[in-house]
């Protein structure tokens, strides 16, 4: 199923990407060719096939439930341009309609 320019633009916005007209045109062509490539999956009978997982990671290894404070929190804070009182500060989340 081919996606329209509007649909691809909506998907891009969902990913928080605003595309220029030229970028959008390239992306529409790319996505539609890519989906055509994936249509080849329909040739396979996948009904009884389990999704893939590595045998070694079937069981998620857990560490002891102990707190180990990260020793370089200042190193994290120093990298942000949006810090106030050692907390990250973000612009307003609820926007006017």
């Amino acid at each position, binding site marked *: 199923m081919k996606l329209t320019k509007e649909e691809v633009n909506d998907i891009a916005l969902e*990913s928080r990407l605003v*595309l220029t007209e030229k970028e959008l045109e390239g*992306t529409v062509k*790319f996505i539609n060719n890519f989906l055509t490539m994936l249509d080849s999956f329909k040739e396979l009978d996948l009904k009884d096939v*389990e*999704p893939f997982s590595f045998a070694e990671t079937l069981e998620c*290894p857990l560490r002891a439930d102990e707190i180990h404070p990260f020793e*370089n929190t200042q190193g*994290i804070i120093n990298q942000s341009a949006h810090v106030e009182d050692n907390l*990250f500060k973000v612009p307003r989340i609820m926007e006017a309609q």
Partner: protein
Amino acid sequence: MQLYELNLHEMIEGLKAKKFSADELLTSCQNRIDSLEKNLNALITRLDDKKISNPSGILAGVPTILKDNICTRDIKTTAASKILGEWKPPYDATVWKLLRDAGSVLIGKANLDEFAMGSSCTKSAYGATKNPHDISRVPGGSSGGSAAAVAAGYVPFSLGSDTGGSIRQPASLCGVYGFKPTYGMVSRYGLISYGSSLDQIGPFARTVRDLQIVMSVLAHHDEMDSSSFREKNYDFSYDESKLNLKGKKIALVKEFQSFNLEPSIANAMDKIKKILEDEGAEIIEVSLPVVSKYSLACYYALAMSEAHTNLERYDGVRYGYTVQDASGLKEMFERVRSYGFGPEVKYRIIAGTCLTEPSRCDEYYVAATKVRTLVAQEFARAFTQTDFILQPAASSKAPKINELDQIDELKSYEADLYTLPVNLAGLPGLSFFTGYDDDNLPVGLQLIGARWSDPEILNAGIVIENHTGSPKIANGGLN
């Protein structure tokens, strides 16, 4: 002979025997970088620290370079993307910690395709890296900077990452050895994620024996990576008694035999088959119909879906490029991400978002995870019949940089067909040097093994290297 020309094991021996000092070695490598870097652009960041953390470690005083998607505490780490800006990670990747604790000295962070998405090392916010054998050509990618650095003699070994061939293909195009370990063999803690179920860190070097040395340092369980192996030991030591291919079976993939290979790659295949037979190995054929026909679509469906999830974290709040005057969070995210990501990364994020939307998820993403099961099962069956699989590591010689624009995006993905199935099944793969073609460009091939057969593949690689000889250092555009 200059010190930078020595291979890793020769450097280790020379330092130990006090034939030269670590300072002299580092200076020689730094001088080499000084003379070639303007031609090659292999590095994003250069470092001149000469501190050796462990003077008695196996790598004491040996310089190295890491792909710039491997986190290094207080050292700029970019993933070749504008979106990370001047970010300095607050922690070290496990692989760097292991190398540093073994005494290695970091002298640079290498260029890559942005977020490791590409196979040319031209899709970097820091400009294209050039192939040190012919600077009008690409070095391959995404770990092109790491491969070029070893080929040109900046360092005796470097690290890259391989999500669909990003170590093996540039190793082949740059004429060095590149090893993608079994998924789980080397910790990815501190590797900037692209496709987490596919990503694997591994080394480049100019001899297979040097790869063994680096792997002996890197192959450790790490509780910070849930995919890291447990309760096993792997012996990567150099042992002449294990360099024997007599009675081993080495398979060609039946479905790939109808492909038209470039003459230099076809000749290399013939040459290596003959070497293997002379060593007493039996060349057989295995059939991998699902692998050969569906891997490409399967791989890109999964890699893009995982990339879309992994790259959601780049929002300008905690690190990297940001804006100060956004009226709200949505505007901030949109401005940061739209400016910060390059075109290829945007394609992949949008494609991944598309494939994982509830209305399409079963048809594409879930289907791809099932196809992956079939791919892994097919490989597992093949490895009941053969010890190794032999095939090209790249579909062509290194393309000219100015010809890349003529290649369609999806068409360029097809070039990865020889490498990416290995990541889908989590297998180890060695890209090895075979010789030079008529244009004096190196030609590499690939040996693939069953999961956890990493030491055996490297031993087989040494047997081949004993026939072909090791690659010479590239002149990097100098006359």
